């Protein structure tokens, strides 16, 4: 038995196999496979710990197909947090076998190297997209709409000054852009800056924008994640307030980062102090009183999708809704199951695209069913996946960041 599995053994043993997680687990709901449900994952991790199965390719699929959405933990009457146990199992797997396949490890390591990341997005924006447009049947690659996938040959940080100042600033904030926004959803990043400056904040956009470390963390590469955390704190630690508009980055900086250093007493206080000054975009903006600055002449119907990291990890749900509802002439329609995962889940959408795309189809149907003309959310990964899910259904409902909706209602 590996040390990590030994540590979590009692938690694995708490699962009473009642199966109540079946209704909550999105990966199970798709085709009813018992090894792709929380109960199955827990029982199989336990079976590995007991030496009853091998950590072969099938086992790897069991732990790596988990969305880590945390919905099962809410449904579990025994209080089993399967997403945490899966994370521990991935850590155990990484230590024993490394990160597989090679492509996944390449992606994860690329995210820690800004130069390589910039090259990839440049290549996609220039050559890649063009090539795909010329090939029939390539609009949807692995469930992602390639034609409308945003990408920029010029990252956001290169498009804005380091300090965007306002007269008599109420607050000074540093903007942690996050890889996805920096290279792909650049216009949403501009919206974030616009909303913050209109709210009277001086916004600093540090030139150095390291990856938050979440992608490495969730695949068990804690060493790489710790290195990223230290880079983040080296750059952002000096600011009083740090804001990010990516739900996943927010969760990493506020929550997982603290857990990552729980056994490092020398650095833990630094991490805790840093985490305490990080705010998710809507969390911060809802304290700034921008409501009376919002104008809108045309009516619109908007719904909101809760990213897993905000609703279940950080428990931020009211703030974005309140902000959206404060836009004049905006009718807010709550969709069915707004808080359920959209299927993106980081690299799950790339490596288990069939599963992921089926989950997104449910989300898209719920958005269409809400009658909304726009769907807003707070995470670029959700934006990418939901946009593709809607396009696959032939829907024209645009996906926007909450910041985009607010920015449109703020006059220049």
């Amino acid at each position, binding site marked *: 038995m590996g040390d990590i599995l030994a540590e979590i053994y009692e938690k694995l043993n708490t699962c009473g196999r009642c199966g109540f997680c079946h209704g909550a687990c999105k990966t199970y709901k798709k085709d009813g*496979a018992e090894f792709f449900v929380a109960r199955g994952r827990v029982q199989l991790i336990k079976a590995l710990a007991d030496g009853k199965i091998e950590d072969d390719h099938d086992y790897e699929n069991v732990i790596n197909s988990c969305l880590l959405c945390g919905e099962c933990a809410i449904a579990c009457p025994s209080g089993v947090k399967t997403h945490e146990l899966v994370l521990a199992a991935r850590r155990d797997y990484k230590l024993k076998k490394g990160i597989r396949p090679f492509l996944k490890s390449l992606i994860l390591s690329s995210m820690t190297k800004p130069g390589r990341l910039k090259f990839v997005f440049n290549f996609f924006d220039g050559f890649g997209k063009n090539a795909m447009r010329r090939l029939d049947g390539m609009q949807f690659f692995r469930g992602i709409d390639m034609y409308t996938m945003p990408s920029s040959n010029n990252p956001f940080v290169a498009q804005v000054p380091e300090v965007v100042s306002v007269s008599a600033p109420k607050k000074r904030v540093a903007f942690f852009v996050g890889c996805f926004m920096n290279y792909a959803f650049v216009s949403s990043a501009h919206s974030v800056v616009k909303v913050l400056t209109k709210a009277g904040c001086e916004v600093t956009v540090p030139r150095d924008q390291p990856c938050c470390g979440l992608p490495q963390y969730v695949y068990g590469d804690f060493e790489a994640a710790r290195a990223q955390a230290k880079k983040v704190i080296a750059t952002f630690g000096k600011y009083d307030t740090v804001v990010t508009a990516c739900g996943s980055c927010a969760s990493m900086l506020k929550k997982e980062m603290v857990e990552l250093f729980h056994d490092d007493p020398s650095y833990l206080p630094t991490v805790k102090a840093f985490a305490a000054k990080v705010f998710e975009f809507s969390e911060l903006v809802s304290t700034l009183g921008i409501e009376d600055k919002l104008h809108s002449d045309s009516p619109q119907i908007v719904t909101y999708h809760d990213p897993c990291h905000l609703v279940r990890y950080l428990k931020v749900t009211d703030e974005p809704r309140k902000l959206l509802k404060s836009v004049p002439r905006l009718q807010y329609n709550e969709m069915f199951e707004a808080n359920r995962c959209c299927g993106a889940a980081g690299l799950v959408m790339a490596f288990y695209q069939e599963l992921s795309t089926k989950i997104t189809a449910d989300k898209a149907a719920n958005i269409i069913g809400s009658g909304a003309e726009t769907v807003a959310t707070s995470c670029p990964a959700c934006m990418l996946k939901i946009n593709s899910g809607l396009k696959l259904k032939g829907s024209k409902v645009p996906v926007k960041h909450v910041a985009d909706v607010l920015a449109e209602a703020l006059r220049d």
Partner: protein
Amino acid sequence: MAVAQKTDQDTLVEALINIAGEQDVVTGRVAMYAYGYDATLLFGVPRAVVFPESTQEVVDIVNYCRATGVNIVPRGAGTNESGGTIPVDNCIIMNCCRMKKVLEVDLDNYVAIIEPGVVNYDIQEMLAKYGYYYPPDPASYKASTMGGNVGECSGGPKCFKYGVTRDYIYGMEFVTSDGKVRWVGGRDFCSEPFYDLTRIMCGSEGTLGYMTKFAIRIEPIPAAKRTMLAFYNEPVDAAQSVADIVAAGIVPTTLEMMDNLIINTAEDATGAGLPRDAGAMLIIEVDGPAYGDLDDQVKTITEVVKKAKPKQFKIATTAAEVDACWLARRVAIGSVAHRAPSYSMQDITVPRSKFPQAVAGIVQTSKDYDLDIGILAHAGDGNFHPLVLFDQRNKEQSERVHKAEAALVKMALDLGGTMSGEHGVGLLKKPLLPNEYEPVTMGAFRNIKRAFDPINRMNPTKIFDL
């Protein structure tokens, strides 16, 4: 060059793939382990799992298994509490999860035609749009399939007033081990002439045939509902209220009882603010066509409950308060995991008039065998789920648990009750069944099994050995 010998296993898998398609056949050690368990502590390993998507595929699979001597164990979501879906020797698991179409909803006749893989909750959700529902609601209803519900004849909190699964199945299609497709019962009527084979199929735990289609009875959602919550000093006080409510001529939708141990584990799980020193709690729910009728019932229930001197009595006035009343009950079973890693859940049922004696009997069993036993009961129909807490890894304690289980069953039978109210027999209660029935009755059961499945291919060794 050596040519690899094709094993029996390869031949079986190849045949299943030919019938059901590659996507619908699962093998491999990891996956087979995942189909080895259910909600009990039993375990077995199947040779393969197949997910038929049509009645024809079921027929082809059954024919193949008959010809090659492979046993068939049916399975839905695997949430049963009796070991009914535990793999047996030389078996495949036939899983109904991917046959999940709702074929017809006929509101004029209160009927829906569905496939067995439809999850109970999904039916409720679908019907709610029309203002209808399907009354049986086992605790696992968010997970469990209708195939499983019918196989086990599931009950649920509402069954005191509304009955169990058996009362809502008009007819069904199933495939017997000879590969024939049969339809029994009707589509629109509760009864068809002659032998009621539909009711024999309900609760047959997959031993007679593999069910592929159901005509279920649906009903309009009652317009009004009132929910009350009472906490008592002693379980016997709660038992008295149960008897008095029914004696007053009221048939509540729900009468759920939880004892001190379960109140505490539920509080551990939810932090909902339940009084930890209460000896028992009772959830009382009445429903009907209009609020006016219910007001009288609520008034009577209030008087009756007050007579038993409760610690607290609440009438929920908002949907949120109703939800709060149910929260503890919903988590009750799983929440015992906060106390001990393993539990054994019994399903004994006694005549309602013997309810207080049964409560006393469970408390005595707990003392006799030095085990923590939590009491959870559908009190209206005298159905108890005593939860015996233990650690499976402790051999000596596990032995005591088995003895306590037998003692509980004996106690229920002595009170004129039954060992299983709604969970079925499966493997778990198989050794205890002859305590309940005369040999001649057991013989009749075996003859029914032989009439449907003479070659003993469908879920063999469950309930009894042929």
